[in-house]
């Protein structure tokens, strides 16, 4: 398993989720304030969801003792698998709530603190999940996609 360093996170910059929560890159305070703010938020959430869904399918293929799984050392033991899948349950919770809040915000409404909090949690969780995957080109590709989200 690889470890994502602080510099890995720094390289991401502000990241997609603060952008998504605010709807713009310069700290605007309202979801409806910028042109296409909701679209920006939606696109960030959608990309994150695509990455997480792909990461979940990839992780399932790597569970030890299943047909086609890598050998011991490169595969994911069942206890770790359950732990990682537990992260996906959290992703469902954070992502679902964030989606509902973002969807229901009228134009011009200040972005609620709860949305920003959820966005930060979801972002941190997404990186935690990716860092738990065995190294490989697929995992690397997902990291790149998440950083761009």
């Amino acid at each position, binding site marked *: 398993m690889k470890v994502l360093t602080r510099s890995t996170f720094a390289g991401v910059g502000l990241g997609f989720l603060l952008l998504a929560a605010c709807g713009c890159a310069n700290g605007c305070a309202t979801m409806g304030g910028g*042109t*296409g703010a*909701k*679209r920006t938020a*939606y696109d960030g*959430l*959608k990309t994150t*969801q695509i990455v*997480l*869904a792909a990461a*979940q399918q990839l992780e*399932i293929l790597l*569970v030890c*003792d*299943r047909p086609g799984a890598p050998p011991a050392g490169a595969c994911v033991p*069942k206890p770790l*698998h*359950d732990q990682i*899948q*537990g992260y*996906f*349950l959290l*992703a*469902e*919770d954070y*992502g*679902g709530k964030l*989606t*509902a809040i973002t*969807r229901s915000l009228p134009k011009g409404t200040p972005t609620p603190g709860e949305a920003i909090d959820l966005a930060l949690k979801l972002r941190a969780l997404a990186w935690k999940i990716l860092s738990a995957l065995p190294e490989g080109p697929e995992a690397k590709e997902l990291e790149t996609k998440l950083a761009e989200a």
Partner: protein
Amino acid sequence: MDINKLIKIAQAVGDVVKVVSPAATEIRARLAAARVEVTEAEWDELAAGWVSIGDTARSEIARKD
């Protein structure tokens, strides 16, 4: 060609441009708005996607190999 015919053709072309140009602007504006606006179907799909991730996780945790 008769100069009068040329003038008539030019006028006809001008009339077409007058009609088409605002329509094209309107179409462009509508396309841009459609891209910015998130549809209800898109929100539904996004919400369903999170549930799907959760369902898969629950299924995997419950799975006994």
